[in-house]
Structure formats: C-alpha cells, structure tokens
C-alpha cells in the first residue's frame, strides 16, 4: 500500500490538522509516514502545501515527484490547480468549491471551474456552506477529509478512531462535531 497526498490551501485554513488526522491513522496502522510541511513567512495568507506520504514500505523522499500524487486535497479551488504537475495520471482532486479571495487578481470562478471540469477525477464540495448548514462550522476541513477517504485508501472507521485520539483532549463536543463532519464528507462524495 502506498498513497502520496498533496494537502493545500491558504495559510490558516487548517490543512495541517487534516494531515495530523491522516498521520495518526497511518501510524496506528504501523504504516511508514513522511510529511513535509511549510512553516514561517508563507503562512501569512500565502499559498501553503504539505506533501504527505504513507506506505507499507519504507519511504525515501520527503517530497513527492511530479506526476506522483494519488490525491490532491485542497481547501481552495485555485490552490488545487496549482499542484497539477504533481498529480498522477489517474489521481484524484478533492477540493473545496469556495474560493478564498485575498488577492486583487483572483481569476473568475468560471475559469477555475472550467479548468477543474477538464480533469478526469474531481470532487468539489461547498464544505464551508455544508459545515454551517449542519452545525459544525469549525470542521469544514474534516468534511473534505471524509470526501477523500476512499482515495486515501484508509478505512473509514480508522479515520474516526484517529479523530477521537487527535481531538480527545478538546472534549466530547469537538470529537462529535468532527465525526459528524467526516460522515458528511463521505456522503457528499458518493
């Protein structure tokens, strides 16, 4: 088993917590993990990405080669497109449909959507709206994780367990909100 994942978005959108949950689930499965993160200046509202690799065999490189990513999980639609050269031929893009506009020249959403439509395997979800509508406004990122579950190749209940361990110390309410968000994502992906 080997899955190479690019997690991306804008600084502050919560991609590192998705990575933490996947990492936790993978470590519990005794899988090998490498996860390259971005810290520092670029976190201030700039584009951020993390390369997350999980495998049943030892992993050499911390970075994914071009054409190697099985999944791009993006908290932002234009950011999903930024990493296209890294996407494998039959790889999946799982992205938030909501643009994060903090630059004056953000492209027209029709253009971004048309670019995404041209790709073979794309799941687009309005996670922000869905999170608000379902009373889990702070767990939009976990909805995205739920939608990516199949593409990740990690069993659903193992992600649930990981959420319990990662959020456990924040209390039962936070755990339940994230479990619910994960389920919402799974449903949306179907």
């Amino acid at each position: 088993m080997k899955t190479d994942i690019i997690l991306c978005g804008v600084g502050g959108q919560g991609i590192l917590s998705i990575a933490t949950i996947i990492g936790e689930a993978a470590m519990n499965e005794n899988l090998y993990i490498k996860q390259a993160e971005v810290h520092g200046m670029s976190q201030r509202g700039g584009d951020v990405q993390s390369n997350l690799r999980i495998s049943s065999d030892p992993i050499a490189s911390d970075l994914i080669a071009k054409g190697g990513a099985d999944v791009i999980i993006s908290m932002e639609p234009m950011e999903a497109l930024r990493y296209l050269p890294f996407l494998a031929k039959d790889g999946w893009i799982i992205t938030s449909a909501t643009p994060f506009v903090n630059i004056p020249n953000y492209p027209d959403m029709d253009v971004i959507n048309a670019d995404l439509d041209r790709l073979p395997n794309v799941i687009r979800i309005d996670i922000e709206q869905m999170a608000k509508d379902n009373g889990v406004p702070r767990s939009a990122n976990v909805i995205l994780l739920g939608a990516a579950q199949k593409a990740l190749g990690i069993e659903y209940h193992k992600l649930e367990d990981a959420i319990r361990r990662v959020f456990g110390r924040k209390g039962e309410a936070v755990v339940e909100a994230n479990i619910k968000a994960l389920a919402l994502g799974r449903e949306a992906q179907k």
Partner: protein
Amino acid sequence: MEKKLLLGDEAIALGALHAGLSGVYAYPGTPSTEITEFIQGNALAKERGVHSRWSTNEKTAMEAALGMSFMGKRALVCMKHVGLNVCADPFVNSGMTGVNGGVVVLVADDPSMHSSQDEQDSRFYGKFALIPTFEPSNQQEAYDMMAQAFDYSEKVCLPVLMRVTTRMAHSRAVVQCVDVPRQQNELNYNAIAANWVLLPANAKKRNDIVTAQQAQLEQDAVNSPFNIYKEGTDKKLGVLCSGIGYNYVMECFPNGCPYPILKISQYPLPKQLVRRLMDECEQVLIVEEGQPFIEDQVRGIYDLKTVHGKFDGTLPRTGELNPDFVKKALGMEMDQCFDPCADVVPRPPALCQGCGHRDVYAALNEVLKEYDNPRVFGDIGCYTLGFLPPFRAIHSCVDMGASITMAKGAADAGQWPAVAIIGDSTFTHSGMTGLLDAINENANITVIISDNLTTGMTGGQDSAGTNKFEAICRGLGLSDEHLKVVVPLPKNMPEITQIIRDEINYKGTSVIIPRRECMQTLQRHLKQKKAQEGKK
C-alpha cells in the same frame, strides 16, 4: 521502544533531551524554531529543569551555551543559517577553546529561501572553524545522531556543528526513541583556564593542537557509522550524496540502487571513502543540498570531467533539491502528466488583516508623500512585507538591525528624511547598539520600533524587550522629548501622522514606538481566555 511521529526539529530536540541536555539556547528563526519550542513544552525537560528560555540573539545564545559547557554540562544552541553569522565570533572561537560539557550547534539552512534572505551553506563554517560537522538524512538519524554528537563533542573536546535543511527540519516521520534517557552531566571544574583564555600565548598553543587534531577527526569520519559506503553492481556511475540528497537518490531506486553509493553524514570529508568511490566508478554524481561544498573539494582546481553535480549543471546550482532534479541528473524520465495550469496566479504572503504594522505603514506613507525622495530602511520580520503592494513602503532589508545603522549611514551621507523601521524583537536582537551610535552623534534619523509584543514572523515567541523599550531608549541617551509612543489604529491616524511629521522635521535622532499586540498572538490569547472561562 516508544514510537513517535515527529518533525525533524522535534526529533532533534528529543534526541538532545534524551542525551542528557541541560540547556537549549536559541533565538527563533525559520526553520529551526520548533526545536526550542518542543523543549519548552516537554515534560522531561520541565522535570529536569532544562534551560529553554529564548535568548536575545544567537550570539548571546552561543556564549551562554559555552558557559554551561565550561561547567561540564551539555548545551544545545539552535539557529537558522543566517543566525550563525550573528554568532560567528563565539562559534569560530569555540573551535579554539574547545568544550568541557558537550556542545552541539544546530544550524538549519534554508535553501530556496522559503523564509530567508540568502542560501548560505553552514558546512563551510564547520570547515573554516575546524569544527566537526554532522548532517542527518532523516528524522530517525537526527534523533540518534544527537546522542552521538554530544558523546563525540566530549570525546574530542570540541563543539559539533549539526547541519540540517528546511526539508529535514519541517518534515515528519515516525521515530523510535530510547526507553531510558541518559542522565544529565554533573557540574564539574575540569575546564582548563589556559584553554579558555584566548590570549595570544594560549591561543597559539590551542591553534596548534586543534589543527593537529584534524587528521584524527577525518579518520573518525572514515570510521563513522553515519558515513555509509554501499556496494553496487554497475560501476559506470557512483553516487556521492549527503543529507536530504540521499533520500532523493534512494527514491529513484525503489528496488535498490545499481550504482555504488557513498552517503556522507559526518565531516571533515572522509577523503579515503571518496577516493574509493572515485577509483571504483567511471563517473561520479554528487547530490548535496545547498551549495556545492563536497563537490568543490572533490573537483578541486583540476575541474575533473568525471565529476558531475552543481558546477556542470547536472543539478541546479541554486535552490533546494527535489526528486525531479535528482531523477533528471540520473538520466531518468520525468513522470509529469498534467501541465501547470495557466490560470493560477501567485498568492504571496501578506500582513494579517488588522495587523498594527499595516497602520504604521499607512501613516508613514501618508506623511512621506510630503517630502522629496524620502528613504525608509526596513528590517527582518513580518513588516518586511511592507515592501509589497499595497504599501511599497521600504527601500532596504539586509540583516537583523540594519535598518537603524543604514538610516544613520544614509543621514551621514546627507539623506533626509531617513527613516528606520524595525520590530521589537529585532530591535533587542541587533538594533540597540546601532541606536547608541545614532544617539551619540544625534544623527538626523527617525526610528520606528513597531512593537507587537512578540516575535511575530516565527509564530509568536516571547520578545526579550517587552515592556522595556522606553527604558532602553532612555538608557541609550535618548531624550524624552523625542521618544513617542502611539497605538497604531486607524482612529489614531491624525495623531500618529502628526508625530511622524514632527519627528522627521526634528534635526536629530528620534524614536517612535507604535505598540499594539500581534493579531496572531491576540487570537491565541483570546482563545485561551475563552477556554479558561469555559472550565470555570
């Protein structure tokens, strides 16, 4: 053995703690910050009373570590690559004094300059200062190497430089840790004063000893368990690699590398191993992250045509390595399937919404419109982003503290208005001495210390001068008349602009301190407060 998912920085921190560390000394700097932060939050460190408070700059950090070593205990100094320039004096001279308790100087280089102003490779410092250098390739090795580095430091009585790069520092992997951490050293009086008093008479003796020691250090590198020679069947090529470069090479050969590989993780460069690879293979590819440090030594001035790497363009000369560059260097095809999307636009980092630096720049720009050719000398921090639109407010950013001294030099040359803008943490790091120069000559400059009560860019660490800035300025001889404190908020714009205007028009040194908490730490503090109230 306990397994933990750790950042490279965290593996380094835990490795040091488990090696019996008594103190970490550091100034925050990407990508090294998380080492000290990990120790600050670690239970064993608390239990053992390991020193972990931030130092004012890298020089004070290095010197404090030497003091701890002098008393026989183990100390770790952490910094980003350019921090090594700041502490170059104690670092280089620690090669002369040697150590008593083990000292590891951990320097995190930032090739590709993700958060830095240059790409300097710290291994050159190790060679130059005659200090042995370690360079781990992965998180486990970083953890294991830390114990070895401290032991080795005490064995050879020299500090050890450990060099990592951004990908090593900021990448996570599972690390197996020892069950029983080593005890800390006891305080001792074994340090020999003649070694530590670098009067010429003593220093000459030490210089001879340390220079003579180099042959042994090289032999140690030949025998090091971290320098690995792997046999290969195809000797048309040999691969010499170090640090993170080794990982990219191995990534290219999931079923094993057919070529002989020499992995270097301990310096001085073990020439005997390098010669073996050169003798066995027709051609050699050198894959190292950073500047061509090994390659320069191997090629020499004979410019050997059988050696490939960064000098002949087989690998890019600048920027960090990645699996694609290494694939290409090994003559393999790229697997890219999709072209870059032409509609994607850059999203540069920006000052946070509501950030006080924004109000400072808005006010400054408003006032400077009234003058011909104003010049604003910037410094290192979030506020360097004031160079970008919409502010386009600064004309320089060179090194920590240079805003004040460059403004002074410009004023000496006849420039007016000459404005310096510097953050609170950068001011105490390296700005105070420059301000003393300015005040002593009453230089015609206006210094803005934009105080957000934290070290913002690295994520909000304590700032050494918080609540002391007026006292520091007065202590340096600034008169109260030209020391102004304001609150940078849009509603205070008329007051702030008037103060800036008045102080620019004053023919002498003045300091304006706009003070308002960083938005990042403010949000964190509000969250903590809410959580505490929830518990009540």
